[in-house]
């Protein structure tokens, strides 16, 4: 079975070669056909892998190394991509999927351009398939087959982390198609309004799953690591944040290219960079050059192959860009204070933010090269990334009302007054009833400001309630995404300023009070799962009239010889009471006390709600193809 899959993957490699060959020669239909065939072949190859994992076929080396008969069925399946080789196979599958979708869905009057895009995409897929087959083949047999597998990294035995890689890869690899479109556009020297119209949908198709994938990873880290937080500025997290930031910049710049024909070169550059940063992310995670809590596959040799690929691809793309960029013309004139200027400002801030994340992530490596070992962590990003992004958030509600070309600045003072008012309100409330620090007050004000701004913008366009539902989906998408950003900011600010952490040491039967909750340890018992043992504490938390039973665990997976934390989270609607079980310690008197990390996380759900709204907004604006009336069109450009 697995041999058939191996053969099918080679077949996919050949089809990709044909897709690239026909595509670059300009044969649109043949290229699209082979893209589809390649996807079908790779789909079968991937299926044989999944099948081997589902059946726990330990004669396949990958299954023996990463699976176990006692593992729940769902996680056997998810185990297919819970390792380096399998995740690379998934990467290829997604890449070929985008190629096939491109061949199927692209329907413009520029077959030559589409053909070239398919050709470039074919080349990219060819490279990733070659990497899969020759540098990290998942199709290797093991003889003799062991009776039992070595198990999966238990941290990955989790629903969020089972679907996190596919989502993330839909984003990462989705940008390979955007890259291909940009390369084809650059080859033709034509990055124009029609190009932008076509590429925008694909850029969004990558952005939405990437957003959700990052959110899933963050949510997993929140409840699984037992650290109470949702973002740790860990190198692997940063690796996924960089393509997201560039993707967000691209999403805004491509609008200018679509509506005005301006920013062509810049949009093309971002389209190229989004995939380069995706590859960089894969390299950082896979190579293990950066130690991290998340990375589960570390191999320096594979890393260097990836790095070489990244350098060749990035280099080629930049040369092409440098050759063609001067020929890209575009757009009517614009002032710095115009919608173009505003979106350029958005792009500047997002790219500088990306650069900051890159610098902070790579700086320890650079320092090590000159003989220093230093760490760059959360405090650095809080003092650089956060204020830089805050600039964009302050400006957003004001500048999104600006007109193309030249903005009317006469109402600027109203906006300044409104912003000052919101900040003052939160500041005063902060000193008084809410009792929050000044910076947190400003942060909360910023969140409210963004939500207000999102509402104001759609109101400005609709003008009456009756017309609100008739606004184009694109406008609704933008509104939702920007309001989501505000909700996210509120959640994030409350997390960084309002979270409390307390360490409790409790004996059975003992009660202590934490942040208004009376927490009693009822007992600690041993429990067993299909492939793990655990110590499970049963606690009763009481506040006011409500009582909650909470059962945090400390699990041990014998097959992987690894402990994990299973936190207990009680949602009150406005906050999470979050308890992680620590060690049991016996003192000299023979009493055992169990330590607990108890967090009270106010409105943590806002963080995730905000991010989901951003993804939803982006998705809506992609779907928005409602035929626009002339009035709508006038409004959008107004």
């Amino acid at each position, binding site marked *: 079975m697995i041999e058939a899959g191996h053969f099918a993957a080679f077949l996919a490699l050949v089809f990709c070669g044909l897709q690239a060959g026909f595509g670059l020669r300009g044969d649109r239909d043949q290229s699209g056909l082979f893209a589809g065939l390649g996807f079908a072949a790779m789909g079968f190859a991937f299926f044989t892998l999944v099948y081997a994992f589902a059946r726990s076929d330990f004669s396949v080396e990958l299954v023996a190394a990463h699976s176990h008969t006692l593992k729940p069925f769902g996680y056997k399946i998810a185990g297919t991509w819970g390792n380096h080789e399998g995740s690379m196979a998934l990467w290829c599958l997604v890449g070929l999927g985008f190629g096939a979708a491109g061949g199927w869905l692209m329907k413009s009057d520029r077959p030559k351009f589409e053909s070239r895009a398919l050709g470039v995409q074919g080349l990219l897929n060819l490279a990733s398939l070659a990497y899969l087959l020759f540098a990290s083949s998942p199709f290797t047999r093991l003889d003799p087959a062991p009776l039992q597998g070595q198990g999966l990294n238990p941290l990955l035995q989790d629903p969020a982390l089972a679907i996190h890689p596919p989502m993330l890869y839909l984003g990462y690899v989705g940008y390979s198609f955007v890259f291909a479109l940009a390369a084809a556009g650059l080859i033709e020297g034509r990055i124009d309004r029609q190009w932008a119209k076509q590429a925008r949908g694909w850029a969004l198709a990558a952005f939405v799953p990437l957003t959700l994938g990052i959110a899933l990873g963050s949510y997993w880290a929140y409840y699984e690591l037992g650290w109470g937080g949702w973002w740790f500025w860990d190198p692997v997290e940063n690796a996924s944040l960089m393509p997201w930031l560039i993707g967000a910049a691209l999403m805004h710049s491509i609008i200018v290219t679509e509506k005005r024909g301006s920013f062509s070169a810049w949009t093309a550059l971002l389209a190229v960079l989004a995939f380069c940063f995706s590859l960089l992310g894969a390299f950082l995670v896979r190579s293990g050059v950066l130690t991290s809590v998340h990375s589960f596959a570390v191999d320096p040799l594979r890393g260097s192959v990836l790095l070489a690929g990244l350098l060749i691809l990035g280099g080629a793309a930049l040369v092409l860009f440098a050759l063609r960029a001067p020929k890209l013309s575009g757009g009517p004139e614009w002032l710095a204070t115009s919608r173009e200027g505003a979106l350029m400002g958005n792009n500047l801030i997002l790219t500088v933010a990306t650069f*900051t994340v890159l610098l902070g992530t790579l700086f320890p490596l650079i320092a090590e090269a000159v003989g220093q070992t230093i760490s760059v962590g959360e405090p650095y990003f809080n003092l650089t990334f956060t204020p830089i992004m805050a600039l964009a958030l302050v400006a957003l509600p004001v500048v999104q009302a600006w007109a193309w070309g030249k903005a009317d600045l006469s109402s600027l003072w109203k906006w300044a007054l409104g912003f000052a008012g919101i900040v003052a309100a939160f500041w005063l409330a902060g000193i008084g009833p809410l009792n929050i620090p000044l910076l947190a007050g400003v942060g909360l004000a910023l969140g409210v400001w963004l939500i207000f701004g999102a509402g104001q913008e759609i109101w400005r366009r609709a003008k009456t309630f009756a017309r609100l539902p008739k606004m184009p989906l694109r406008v609704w998408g933008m509104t939702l995404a920007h309001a989501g950003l505000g909700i996210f900011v509120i959640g994030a600010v409350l997390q960084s300023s309002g979270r409390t952490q307390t360490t409790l040491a409790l004996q059975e039967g003992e009660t202590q009070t934490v942040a208004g909750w009376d927490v009693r340890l009822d007992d600690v018992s041993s429990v067993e799962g299909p492939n793990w043992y655990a110590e499970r504490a049963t606690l009763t938390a009481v506040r006011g009239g409500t009582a909650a039973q909470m059962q945090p665990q400390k699990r041990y997976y014998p097959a992987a010889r690894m402990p994990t934390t299973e936190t207990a989270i009680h949602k009150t609607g406005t906050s999470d009471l979050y308890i992680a079980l620590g060690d049991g310690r016996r003192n000299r008197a023979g009493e055992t006390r169990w330590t607990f990390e108890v967090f009270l996380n106010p409105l943590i759900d806002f963080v995730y709600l905000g991010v989901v709204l951003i993804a939803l907004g982006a998705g809506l604006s992609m779907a928005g193809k409602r035929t626009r009336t002339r009035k709508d069109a006038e409004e959008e450009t107004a």
Partner: protein
Amino acid sequence: MKAVLAALLVLFAAEGGAQLDDPKQEARAQDLMREIRCVACENEPISNSGSDIAADMRDRVRAMVADGMSDEEIRDWFSERYGEFVLFRPSSEGPGGWLLWGAPFVLLIAGGALIFALRRGGSNASGAVEPVDPEEAGSP
């Protein structure tokens, strides 16, 4: 098996981890713990780590806060003992520090100036700035 496991998880150790009575001092100590890296783990601050050495380091932070040492003195103490590696907030001194802390802001300001200077994304091939029309020239 379970008995073995229970024995594994129950460590024989002195009781530690007592929090400071003054909530302000405790909050300061916790902020510091988030900035100090556990020397036995991968990329974790001592506030999160379950390792014994991290627990010792936490106790040390609390003791120093209770002794009235300033944040700077506590950071220096750890930095001298374990190297600068132990601080998640790298120093801003020296050329490396300047680059790390300054580059993002320099880039932001330079980019902002560039937008004002360019104003229009060039329809002109060379990228040179064409003279703007009189109306535009008047505004910033």
